[in-house]
């Protein structure tokens, strides 16, 4: 894989929106004027089963496709990915590049096993715990905004895409002007989250609040 390509692997549980998050980050990167490709793990989707999605971002043309085996950034959407092995890749950081970044959504930080910690230390991996679901619920009013909170965490930690571009990408995805074709189960979740708000603008507004708050928290973690 080209060193100039930033590779992000997102592991979560089916229904948490890891695929949608990848879509929004990829769109944001394109809006920022970069090249990006986005794809899900190729399989049958099921609620709460392991789900993975991948984003590649580069200033150059991106050729390599399919699942990302050697990511620069790993985003874990649910502690069960690590604690219960709900993951296509075991351990969850398999293939992580040297000096890579890991962002974990969990209500509370937890310790890795001794072996895992030793391997992460050898890789010089930076690990950030963020309460994405908690903040999504508190600020956005729903757990369904967990994926949006995770995008906020990514932006706060890495600045890989601009906040303006993320807002634009959110409008494209949820704004209603462009008809987005989702799979049946994703469409149900889309309807569920849209039903919480009177208008698409309200949904985007709430999402942006979640994004900004989590991004700020992530920034402070990096600074610390």
């Amino acid at each position, binding site marked *: *894989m080209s060193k100039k390509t930033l590779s992000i692997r997102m592991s979560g549980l089916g229904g948490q929106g890891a695929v949608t998050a990848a879509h929004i980050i990829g769109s944001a990167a394109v809006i920022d004027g970069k090249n990006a490709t986005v794809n899900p793990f*190729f*399989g049958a989707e099921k609620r709460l089963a392991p789900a993975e999605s991948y984003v590649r971002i580069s200033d150059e043309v991106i050729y390599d496709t399919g699942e990302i085996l050697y990511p620069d950034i790993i985003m874990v959407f649910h502690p069960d990915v690590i604690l219960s092995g709900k993951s296509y890749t075991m351990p969850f950081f398999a293939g992580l590049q040297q000096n890579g970044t890991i962002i974990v959504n969990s209500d509370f930080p937890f310790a890795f096993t001794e072996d895992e910690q030793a391997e992460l230390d050898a890789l010089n991996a930076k690990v950030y715990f963020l309460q994405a679901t908690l903040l999504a619920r508190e600020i956005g009013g729903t757990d369904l905004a967990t994926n949006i909170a995770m995008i906020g965490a990514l932006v706060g930690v890495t600045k890989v895409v601009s906040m303006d571009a993320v807002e634009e990408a959110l409008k494209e995805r949820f704004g209603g002007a462009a008809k987005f074709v989702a799979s049946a189960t994703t469409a149900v979740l889309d309807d569920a989250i849209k039903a919480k708000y009177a208008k698409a603008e309200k949904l985007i507004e709430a999402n942006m609040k979640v994004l900004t708050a989590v991004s700020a928290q992530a920034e402070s973690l990096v600074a610390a």
Partner: protein
Amino acid sequence: MSAKNLKEVSTEYMLFKAEREEQFMTGSEAVREAIRRSNIDMSIVYPITPQSESSHLVGDLYAEGYVKEYLRGENEFAVMSEVAGGAMAGIRMFTATCGPGTLRAFENFPMWSGARLPIVIAFMTRAINAPLSIQPDNIEMSMLLDTGMIMLHAENAQEFYDMLLMSFSVAERTSVHIPVGVFVDGFFVTHTRQKVKVVIEDVKLQGYDPAMSPTPTIDMETPPFRYMKDPFVMKSNYVSYAAHASWQQECMASIERARPYIKALMGDFIERENPGAPIQIVASGTAVSQSRAAIKMAESEGIEVGLVKIKSIRPFPAEEVKKALATAQKIIVPEFNRVGWLAREVASVIPNNDRMVKGPRVFGGMTMPPDVIVKAIKGDTRCGV
């Protein structure tokens, strides 16, 4: 934009002159955009992953008025039979399938060719059972090599879009008039969101003219349509044997006659990188993209590697491939299937097959890390046979 006010244009205008815009979309959405411009009379489909999304999107085009008729068939065998019926009646048909769906429908494909039906079909290739897998794998292409259809293999969503748009014009030439299959590696292309330049002008392809068909279209009021109603098999004599043999040869010849039409719209049958390099990779479809990434990696280590990308599998560019590999010392053929059908094709047209590394091969669903191709380049014998 409205489906009602589209101006009919030539395929050349559509491909080379019409105004385009770069959009961020999946390969499935690229199919929708190509079909939007293709002036389709009827599409019949049966959903199967990873083809389902694109067929759903073609259904949306029907709802919007871009496709005149659309229905879901009972299964793939029914679908491909029904698509044949539409084509025999003289209308432009489009369908898509993959993997087990391809196999279920199989009897129809040589029939399409034998009946000289200019059907365009997209194959979003998928692994074949058993064990059950819905993952990408293009083994079905090896099974379709001798069905008498033209086979184009797209590397990415952009090429998929362009190849679909050009296929109707190739398929419908009087001297060709056989089916065209446009192939992509399922998921890798269909489910990957990437930049695609699509036509945004209010244009569509010129409609199909059934009067240009080399065989009469079925019309219940106007005979003859004897080649189906009164087949040769009913008469066991030398005339019927000779008719069958010459007819089959004629179908094969029509694939060859498609060459200039394909070339005019698609460009050369092969594309090259670093033609002078002693190590050459030969690939088609997604394996090309993985090879391009591998070539960059090898380059950063000071190893120059060339690429021969094959865009048309039928007709196969035998002379071009032979010439391109004339001075190659080592030839690597990475593939997304178990059998290595592309390596077989290449081996059949070049001398000194001991130059070939028939691999690496990844099948059953995983991606092919460019790192594995780099290993093959460096001589790791585990990466090929």
